[in-house]
């Protein structure tokens, strides 16, 4: 009987170790997910950011439509819209546009824009040289600003892609904020 207890105990320890291991695995899924998305570029996250490291040939035969979208995360009162809804570029050609941001509230706020590219296969071919999403964007109460975006579409972009949509979601990251309080002008989504 002692032997049985011994075997039960050692099995118990092994199975508990398995439990702890699987709890850890649950958390390991988080970095694994990021690595998987980085390797495959699947979730439309941008990888090519910052100054260009090589020369690209301008392919004037191809025209790529780049569409811009701006959405507010819920409870974010700012107004954000692209200066141009859509521009047409050649692969390899540097282009500049801007997003217009307005803080309609009575307090100073900080925002962070999170970009996403659709179709996600295009994400690795969109080089962002400069973007307002690289940094947190503070706006004083009632302040308006044009936030710049400089980008280039890679000349290696697969032929079947002719339209790229770049979308930004704006999040309120003002420290210690209660986002609903003190809105001077009710945000009208139709304006955006």
């Amino acid at each position: 009987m002692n032997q049985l207890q011994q075997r039960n105990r050692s099995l118990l320890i092994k199975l508990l170790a398995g439990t702890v291991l699987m709890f850890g695995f649950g958390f390991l899924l988080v970095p694994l997910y990021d690595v998987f998305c980085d390797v495959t570029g699947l979730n439309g996250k941008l990888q090519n950011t910052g100054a260009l490291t090589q020369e690209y040939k301008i392919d004037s035969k191809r025209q790529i439509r780049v569409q811009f979208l701006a959405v507010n995360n819920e409870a974010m009162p700012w107004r954000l819209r692209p200066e141009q809804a859509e521009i047409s570029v050649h692969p390899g050609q540097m282009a500049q546009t801007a997003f217009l941001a307005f803080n309609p509230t009575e307090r100073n706020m900080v925002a962070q824009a999170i970009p996403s590219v659709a179709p996600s296969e295009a994400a690795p071919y969109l080089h962002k040289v400069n973007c307002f999403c690289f940094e947190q964007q503070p706006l004083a109460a009632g302040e308006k600003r044009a936030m710049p975006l400089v980008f280039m579409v890679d000349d290696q972009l697969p032929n079947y892609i002719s339209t790229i949509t770049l979308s930004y979601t704006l999040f309120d990251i003002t420290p210690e904020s209660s986002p609903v309080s003190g809105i001077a002008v009710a945000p009208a989504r139709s304006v955006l």
Partner: protein
Amino acid sequence: MGSLEKSVHSTGHHGPATGITRWLYTTNHKDIGTLYLFFSLTMFFIGGCMALTIRAELFQPGLQLVRPEFFNQMTTSHGLIMVFGAVMPAFVGLANWLIPMMIGAPDMALPRMNNWSFWILPFAFTMMLSTLLMEGGGPNFGWTFYAPLSTTYAPPSVTFFIFAVHMMGISSIMGAINVIATILNMRTPGMKLMDMPLFVWTWLITAFLLIAVMPVLAGVVTMMLMDIHFGTSFFDAAGGGDPVLFQHVFWFFGHPEVYIMILPAFGVVSEIIPTFARKRLFGYTSMVYATASIAILSFIVWAHHMFAVGMPLAGELFFMFTTMLIAVPTGVKVFNWVATMYRGSMTFETPMLFALAFVVLFTIGGFSGLMLAIAPADFQYHDTYFVVAHFHYVLVPGSIFALMAATYFWLPKWTGHMYNESMAKLHFWLSFIGVNITFFPMHFLGLAGMPRRIPDYALQFADFNMVATFGAFLFGFSQLVFVYNIISCIRSGKQATDRVWEGSHGLEWTLPSPPPYHSFTEPPVFTHPYKENDRGV
């Protein structure tokens, strides 16, 4: 000589303690099995009342009975209670009662842990149910609690929900460890793994699934807790997280979880059909391997729940084909059940009726699952009542019918009395008709585009919803017949024989009915129930 043997010997000649402490302090597998079964029956009725609230609201279009906020709490709580409170504990209760008796063991391997794993549950569910009375209401984000609905936009009571999930996870893991230790270490001499009854086999595989995925569920609710209270951003895009990650981690738990709820049901049906067909089970070995392959495949199909989140084509195809692959071992099982009945001398006592209904209706649910597995078609079916029809067909006439079959099958063994057969047949037919009237029209509603989890709907869905509500009330109230039958069977009834059924096989039927409080204190002599002769009797 160890303490376990000593305690068995010193208490072996008198029965259980009296009063409430018998149940509070018990380490007896039969008592704990009974506790689990009554607990899950209670939860089945609480979850059932929620379901009837939902169906009553959906009886007609427009808002009649409840506010939409409360409706959302009802759909969420109904799902959580039925999955974690009714189906899972009921199978653990069956495991407690039956596994030691089937493998010739005196008790579960870790009896004190067994007591603990049961007594955590009432506290977990009291806490979960109490959130319904809190300010802001209970969980209202669906039983899948997708972030950010369950983090950023959750009611304040979500923290209690998280703690309750942690507790029921701990309970399930302890129960699973106990089952594995019992099966691997306590079989009577001579019983090899491939000699075990299929109910024991399916539970062994289920227990490994539980140990693999319940910690992942604990992990995902812990991440939610940290996002809500400690400023992390696992699922918050503003801080660099990703809400889609939540769905991946959740369904990595969630898909094996659906097999946790059905594999023991397969085991139950594989015990009942050979008994009433008076033949041995067809293809025992293939049954074991089919169960194991279903369990292994369950780890690589999770994203078929998320076809609509925007996966690349390669992902859609991978998860579509692996999902369809599961139909192969499941088909093997259905084939084996039918082949067991082929040219058997069948009789149709209530457990057999439930088992037959299981085979037919579970197969319907399996086929609608195959339809949902087709990724391009799923874009149409996603989040419609077709999905509701599918998973209710595999869970209600699947898991729940198997549980009812098991109850009628082993109730004479447990209580020593025969239940009232004609009342049981009435219960079966009311349930069978009720289930189909409730859930079959939901296929049509879903194909016509009615979304799930809504308190109101467009007028063209009115007729089928009315039919479904009638069926739901028929099914719900016919369960009172079930309870009445169980209670009267416990209190009195015709004395059951030891074998109970003519075709019964397996070690549990060699014990008296009811079995003594401590059974198999001496390991029994094992003779193979399936191989000894062709008729298995």
